[in-house]
């Protein structure tokens, strides 16, 4: 026999807090809907139109595969190159940004500087570089690099700060120089975290490189934009498939290699 269902009406502190948060969320939701003043689309014809477009996208036009392949290579190159360069640069700077191995003021300054860079979305950095350097993947690489660099400095410095202080003390006690301490105590402990962060960022960069093209940085985003704008859904569908596989492929690859096992890595972008 199941127990009778009861709802406790005792207002504990936590319950009030949770209820308050829920009410806030609901209010925010309603306010947002009002703010947006969404003009609801023109009825069911639009939905059926959308569905017919999607159906057209599913019949993919493989005929354009050569252009798409080159574009995909371009985008992947942008992502890979940006990740490699930003990893190298961030690796060196991160030691100065970690409070347990570097001067407090210096570390704070570097972190603040990188936070500022990180707060500007990647795409906007790419746009700035496009404005400065002109269209093309080169601007994309630099834009992506800038943001990745700032992100990885924060991530790596976090990993360095999580190193067991006892190991650092131990190596320091042997009279090692600063570089020797880094190499022998910090790097071995933080190495897996470094790799996980890099893998995570690389996954993200692959996704970003696809859309960089949508605003002028070349690559597969440009292909997508070109085909969609002329309503060529069959080709567009194929490009979307390629974009999906680029991102999905990297995800599967990293799952197999177990490079991104670090579950503490919640922050993105």
């Amino acid at each position, binding site marked *: 026999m199941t127990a009778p269902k009861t709802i406790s009406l005792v207002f504990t502190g936590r319950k009030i807090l949770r209820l308050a948060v829920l009410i806030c969320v609901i209010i925010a939701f309603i306010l947002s809907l009002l703010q947006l003043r969404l003009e609801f689309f023109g009825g069911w014809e639009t939905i059926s139109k959308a569905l017919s477009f999607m159906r057209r996208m599913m019949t993919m036009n493989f005929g354009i595969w050569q252009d798409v392949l080159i574009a995909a290579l371009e985008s992947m190159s942008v992502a890979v190159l940006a990740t490699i360069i930003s990893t190298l640069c961030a690796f060196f700077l991160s030691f100065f940004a970690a409070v347990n191995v570097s001067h407090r003021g210096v570390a704070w300054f570097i972190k603040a500087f990188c936070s500022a860079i990180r707060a500007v979305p990647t795409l906007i950095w790419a746009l700035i570089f496009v404005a400065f350097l002109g269209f093309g993947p080169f601007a994309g690489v630099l834009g992506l690099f800038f943001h990745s660099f700032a992100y990885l400095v924060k991530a790596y410095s976090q990993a360095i700060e999580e190193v067991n202080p006892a190991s650092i003390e131990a190596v320091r006690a042997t009279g090692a120089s600063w570089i020797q301490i880094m190499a022998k105590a910090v790097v071995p402990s933080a190495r897996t975290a470094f790799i996980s962060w890099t893998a995570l960022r690389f996954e993200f960069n692959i996704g970003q490189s696809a859309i960089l093209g*949508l605003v002028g940085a070349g690559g597969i985003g440009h292909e997508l934009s070109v085909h969609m704008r002329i309503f060529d859904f069959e080709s567009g569908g194929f490009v979307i498939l390629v974009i999906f596989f680029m991102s999905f492929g990297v995800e599967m690859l990293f799952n197999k290699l177990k490079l991104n096992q670090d579950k503490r890595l919640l922050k993105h972008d």
Partner: protein
Amino acid sequence: MRIKKAIPLTNSKRFYGWAAVALVIATTLVTGHFSSFNLPDAFAAVPGVIVFLANDFFPPNIGELPNILTPLLDTLAMAVVSTVIASCLSLVLAFLCAAPTTPHAAVRVVLRAFASALRNIPSLAWVMILVPAFGIGKFVGVLALIIGSLGSLTRFFTETIEEIDRGKIEAIRAAGGSYWQVLRNGVMPLCLPGFIAWMLYNFELDVRASSIIGMVGGGGIGFFIHSSLKLFKYANVATGILVVVLVVLIIEWTSKKIREALL
């Protein structure tokens, strides 16, 4: 005289170290070629951009702030609506998809593929897909955000459900709880902190995404930034960027506080 046995090259650890370095260098060269990377230009570009920013972007044009207010509120509103709606839908989907609570294995596979398809296509790409049918504007933006968030949240929620401590579920089941009682008293309380964390995280992602989908037709502040850039009104761009940065930082800070208070 003993002849030392030769160590095969691939047994040596140093070989792998140097092989990795060679691989990285080779990759850099290949990708550099495909992305038209120009090293001297790159070295000049980084300080060049900073000079460019300093000259053309500062001082930011404060006069534009009233014009930015509405798009900014739109951007935030889009993120809120998207996170709330996607969270509700994903909750249902996640329970259907997670290994301990799925009704059937086939459902699980189908839903995982579906969520994967949704989240591996960036939000901006979704905007490009939906614009031909729905036109440009905030509705398309919200729709694209919801679809993207649906994919991510379903995956995240599923992982949360699969990681809970099965022992407690067993205990409730052993005490005679029905399916719904197990769900309400066992699974939900265990999953709730994880769910809330992922929802907050998704909200941050959505704010970032919604601030840029305006660039391809999604409404919000992205449109302002993009059009100002095309019109070479860099001071306006600076204002737009500063506003976005401020909002993102505030939301990050608030989210951290909420996490500390609630979890």
